[in-house]
C-alpha cells in the first residue's frame, strides 16, 4: 500500500534524533585508519627502534639501552660496502627502469590512437605480474645459465667458444631481474601523467615552431616529472629493501642491506638487524624526501 502525503499537511517526518558534535564525527571517521596504521605500522616500528638499543648474545636479547648496535653497524667497513652496493643497484635499476618506463608510457600515451588499444596494451604490460616475483626471477636461470638459452645459442652460432660466465650469478643478473620485476612500477605512474597532458599542448608547441625533440624536452618531460617522481619512489624503495633477488640472482656473491639483515636475523642477532633496519629506514626516508623536494607530486595525488 502506498500512502499519499500532501506537502505541508499533517505531521512532519520525524527528524533523526542522533546528533553528534561535528568534531567527534570527524574523529570517529578517522579512527579505523588510525587503528590499522597504529597496529600494523607504528607499533612494529616502535618495537624495532626499541630493540635496536637492546643487548644480545648468541641465545637471548636483554632489554637495555646500549648504542653499540649502531656503532658496530656504522663503524664496520662491510656495512658501508653493503650500503654502497645496494645504492649502486638502486641507481642502476632506477636509471634503466626510468628510461624504459618513460618510453613505453610515451609510446602508449602518444602513439596509440584509440583509448581501447591503449588499455589493451597497458594490460598486456601487466600480464607478467600475474605470476609471483620468485617465479619470474627463477625463470631467468634457464635463460642465463651456463648451459642456458643464451649461452647455448651463442656457442651454436660460433660467437663464443666458452659459455659466458657473467650472465648469471653476477651483478648483471641482479640488475636485469630487478629491471624486469620493477619496470611496471615506473610505467604506470608515468603513463598516468602522460595521459593527462592535453594533446593540444603538443600542437601549440608545434605551432610555435618546436621540433619533435623540443616538444619532448620543453613540454612532455617537464609535465611528466610528477609521474617519474612517483615511479622513482616505488622503484627505489623496492630495490633498497630487496633481498631475495640479490640472493638468488647473484648466487650469494653480492650483498644488499636487506640481505645483511636477513643473515643477522638467522644468526639471532635481532638487535643488530633492528639497528640496521632503522638506518636503512632513515636513509630511504631521506631519499624520498629528496625526491619530493625536487618534484611537486601533489597534483598527481
Amino acid at each position: 500500500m502506498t500512502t499519499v502525503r500532501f506537502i505541508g499537511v499533517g505531521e512532519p517526518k520525524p527528524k533523526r534524533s542522533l546528533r553528534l558534535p561535528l568534531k567527534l564525527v570527524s574523529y570517529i571517521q578517522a579512527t579505523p585508519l588510525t587503528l590499522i596504521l597504529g597496529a600494523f605500522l607504528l607499533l612494529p616500528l616502535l618495537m624495532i627502534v626499541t630493540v635496536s638499543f637492546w643487548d644480545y648474545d648468541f641465545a637471548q636479547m636483554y632489554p637495555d639501552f646500549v648504542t653499540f648496535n649502531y656503532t658496530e653497524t656504522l663503524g664496520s667497513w662491510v656495512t658501508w660496502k653493503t650500503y654502497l652496493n645496494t645504492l649502486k643497484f638502486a641507481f642502476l635499476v632506477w636509471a634503466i627502469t626510468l628510461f624504459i618506463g618513460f618510453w613505453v608510457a610515451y609510446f602508449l600515451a602518444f602513439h596509440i590512437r584509440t583509448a581501447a588499444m591503449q588499455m589493451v596494451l597497458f594490460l598486456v604490460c601487466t600480464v607478467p605480474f600475474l605470476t609471483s616475483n620468485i617465479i619470474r626471477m627463477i625463470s631467468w636461470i634457464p635463460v642465463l645459465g651456463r648451459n642456458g638459452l643464451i649461452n647455448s645459442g651463442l656457442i651454436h652460432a660460433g660467437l663464443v667458444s666458452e659459455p659466458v660466465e657473467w650472465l648469471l650469478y653476477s651483478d648483471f643478473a641482479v640488475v636485469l631481474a630487478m629491471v624486469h620485476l620493477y619496470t611496471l612500477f615506473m610505467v604506470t605512474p608515468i603513463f598516468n601523467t602522460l595521459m593527462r597532458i592535453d594533446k593540444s599542448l603538443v600542437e601549440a608547441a608545434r605551432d610555435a615552431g618546436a621540433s619533435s625533440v623540443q616538444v619532448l624536452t620543453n613540454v612532455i618531460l617537464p609535465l611528466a616529472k610528477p609521474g617519474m617522481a612517483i615511479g622513482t619512489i616505488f622503484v627505489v624503495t623496492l630495490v633498497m629493501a630487496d633481498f631475495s633477488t640479490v640472493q638468488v640472482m647473484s648466487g650469494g656473491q653480492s650483498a644488499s642491506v636487506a640481505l645483511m639483515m636477513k643473515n643477522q636475523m638467522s644468526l639471532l642477532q635481532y638487535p643488530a638487524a633492528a639497528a640496521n633496519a632503522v638506518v636503512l629506514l632513515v636513509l630511504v626516508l631521506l631519499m624520498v624526501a629528496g625526491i619530493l623536494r625536487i618534484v611537486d607530486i601533489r597534483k598527481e595525488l
Partner: protein
Amino acid sequence: MTKAAEIDIASVSKVYGTTTAVHSISLKIPAGSYCCLLGPSGCGKTTTLRMIAGHETITSGDVLLGNKNVTDLAPAERGTAMMFQSYALFPHLDLVDNVAFSLKMKGVDKETRRAKALDMLKLMQLDAYATRRPAQLSGGQQQRVALARALITDPEALLLDEPLSALDPFLKVRMRAELKKLQTSLGITFVHVTHSQEEAMALADLVVVMNDGRIEQAAPPRTVFERPATAFVARFMGDHNVISGRVTEVSEGRLTLAVAAGASFSAPADTAEIGAPADIAIRTDRVQVGVDAADGYGFTGTINNIEYRGSSVKLAVNGAGIEDFTAILSDKVFFANPVKVGEAIQLSWNAEDVIVLGRPS
C-alpha cells in the same frame, strides 16, 4: 603596420578513412580582413582552420598564404599562428615563458626573448601577472596570454579556434570587442571559427557559413543576413521563416509556391522551373499582424505560443500547413492590440521582404 596575407583555399578536401569532412571547398580571404567560419558542430569549420594552420594534412587541394603555397609546410613555417580552443597554455611555465616559447624554440637568447615577451604582455595589460602560472589566471586573462603567445611570432594571419566559447556570456561580449579592436590595430588577417551567428555578425568582414563539409555562403555579414543563399543559411542565421514547397506558376516577375497542405505563397522571381522544389524566406521582424494580405503574401493561422522578450514579443503561429511560423512584433505594436494563445490571427508581409532561396548544388 604588419604584412597581412591573403589566404587562398583552392578546392581543399579532407577525408578521414571513408568519411569526408571537407568537400573540395574554395575560398579567398582578403588580406587584413576578419573572416568567421560559421556553422554547426561537425560542419568541417575547425578542420578547415586546422588545415590552414597545418595541424591537419590536406587530402587534396592547396592552401596559399599571400601567394605562397603552404600546403606541405610545417605549422611554424607558414606565417600563421593558431590560438587553441582551450588556449593550450603550458601549465608548467609562467606567463613570460609561455609567451616567449616560440622565441625559445628559435634559439633566441634568454634576455632578448624575455624582454620581448614582457613587451607583449604589456600590450595585453598582463605585465603585472608576468611571473604567474596560467592556472592562477581567469579565463579572460588566459585568453589574452594565448593571444600574446600567438602574436609574438609576428604572424601574417591569426587563426582562432572558438576563442570565446570558454568564457561566460558577459566576458564573451567584452573579449569580442577586444578581438575586433586588436585585428583593426594589427591589420593582419584573422580567421575565427565559431558556431555563434551573433559572434560572426558582430566581428566578421566576411562570414563563411559551412554545413556538412561544404560552404553554403561566403559574403559580408549584412548580405548573409539579408540575402541568405540557401534554406540552411536562413535557418542557421535565425530570424527567418523558411517555407518549402513546389513552384506551380511563374508570371510577371513572380512565382507561386505551393506547400504540401495546399496553401500557396508568392515571391518575386524572374525564372523558375515549374514543379521544381523551392524555398522562400521571410524575415520574422517584417511580418505584420492584422493587416489584410495581398494575394500570396500572408496567411491566417492560430497562435501557438507567445514569448515576451522585453522590447519585442515573439509569436509562433500554425496555419496554412506551416508549423511555428514566427513573427517578431515590437512591444508597442503587440500591446496596442494584444492577442492570446489559440486565437486566429492574420499575418502578412510585403513582396520585397520575401527572398527566394537557392538550393545547394
